[in-house]
């Protein structure tokens, strides 16, 4: 059959002509901030790397307190390229969180959340929460000492959430303590529940991005902005971003293979220098600085409550930043963004050095 015949056969059944027409028309604005548009695609690419390497690791990983550590050890020492696949999974996870943060703050400062893109922002913040949950649950899976205690501390903090804390703690741990039951649970979260939910939210996020197109920052609105075709011009540039991401991954994963540490022992004292992953460090450091009691409340409870309120505020920014939604300048929200970036940076470095 000729290509044309195939094309019309598929089009009649799938409506591919509508997609091709959409791609022909889709354009991306060119201006001095265009570079920031690439970080969303890069995050998506790294997510795909996570899916592929994660599926590969599942071929050998065993989710139980007795076998998890040994199975990861087996992957690292016996399976061909096992050390590389696992190292890429770990590095790509960290790079993905980094590009996600860059993508989020660039969208924030370019005020891309203005109408009609409020729900794109909200779905994006949900994806951030999901990515952090992926990171937290995946960290425990090798069942090593550091991960064991980081999970103890992390789930203990979840226990400080007002009202539902004790329930949340039991729900996360699958009991009162961090045990093999916790590992089974985190494995289920990591490879089934979170991927399922993420697929839905990510699809929504991407559909919204396609529906509304790229947002132009307010400072350039009204000015004549040049555009380029999404396909193939922007997509090929995106591809360069992905090649760079692969390069960064190879440059990190091969010379710095991710370590495994020692097997977790629930009856051994915590080793010195327990720290969470870097993207939780600013939260961890803040909690450490709080006094044991603030007024009549426990310091940790106050901290956790403030963070939850902060997260809710962040999620609802499009509805709170009224000036921006009316097309005015909103210095307060820009200033707030700068403050948050500085706060996270300072607390992360402090936490790292402490």
């Amino acid at each position, binding site marked *: 059959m000729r290509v044309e015949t195939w094309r019309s056969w598929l089009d009649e059944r799938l409506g591919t002509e509508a997609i091709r027409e959409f791609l022909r028309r889709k354009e991306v604005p060119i201006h001095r901030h265009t570079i920031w548009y690439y970080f969303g695609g890069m995050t998506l690419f790294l997510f795909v790397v996570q899916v*592929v390497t994660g599926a*590969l690791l599942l*071929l*050998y990983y065993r989710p139980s307190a007795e076998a998890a550590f040994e199975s990861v050890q087996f992957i690292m020492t*016996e*399976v*061909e*390229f*096992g050390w*590389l*696949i696992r190292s890429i999974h770990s590095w790509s996870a960290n790079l993905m969180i980094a590009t996600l943060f860059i993508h989020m703050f660039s969208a924030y400062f370019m005020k891309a959340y203005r109408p009609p893109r409020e729900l794109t922002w909200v779905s994006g913040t949900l994806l951030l929460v999901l990515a952090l949950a992926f990171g937290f649950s995946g960290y425990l899976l090798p069942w090593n000492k550091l991960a064991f205690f980081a999970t103890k501390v992390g789930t203990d903090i979840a226990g400080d959430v007002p009202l539902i804390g004790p329930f949340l703690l039991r729900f996360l741990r699958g009991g009162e303590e961090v045990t093999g039951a916790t590992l089974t649970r985190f494995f289920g979260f990591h490879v089934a529940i979170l991927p399922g939910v993420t697929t839905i939210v990510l699809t929504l996020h991407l559909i919204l991005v396609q529906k509304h197109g790229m947002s132009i920052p307010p400072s350039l609105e009204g000015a004549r902005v040049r555009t380029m075709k999404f396909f193939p011009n922007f997509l090929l540039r995106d591809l360069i971003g992905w*090649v760079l991401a*692969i390069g960064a991954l190879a440059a990190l994963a091969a010379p710095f293979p991710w370590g495994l540490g020692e097997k977790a022992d629930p009856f051994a004292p915590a080793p010195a220098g327990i720290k969470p992953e870097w993207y939780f460090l600013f939260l961890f450091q803040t909690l450490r600085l709080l006094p044991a009691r603030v007024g009549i409340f426990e310091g940790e409870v106050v901290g956790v409550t403030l963070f939850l309120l902060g997260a809710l505020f962040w999620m609802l920014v499009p509805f709170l930043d009224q000036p921006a939604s009316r097309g005015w300048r909103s210095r307060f929200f820009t200033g707030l963004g700068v403050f948050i970036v500085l706060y996270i940076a300072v607390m992360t470095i402090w936490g790292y050095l402490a």
Partner: protein
Amino acid sequence: MSPWSEQRRKLLNILLGTSVGATLVAILYPILKFMIPPEVIEATQTSVVAGRVNELPPNSGKIFKFGNKPGLLVRTPTGEYKAFSAVCTHLDCIVQYRPDLRLIWCACHNGQYNLSGKNIAGPPPRPLEEYAVNIRGEEIVVSKM
């Protein structure tokens, strides 16, 4: 297009094509190698203690572990000890001793072996592998022949 730029385009296409190809190979090769399970080296066992002397009455049988494979120890109605691989030669099921039939029987597809391990009925194509049985004091030692 001038012939010169046409040639240049050709060269660029070759360079781009080979580097895309090389990248794909560099990604797919580790993935394929990763998916092939590494060989687990196991110490090959040649003999094992399958049971104790007064454990089995005549006309009975038991499964024992021979390395990572199951074996079948049978005490015949005449009181003799026999040992076989318990893996059916048909489709890898685990066989059992049937005191009522006085035969070795596979439940999966009704395969039957006599007490010398020979396939006598049903689908099994070959006899069961037979092991040597020696009594050492109280222990029944089974070893590969």
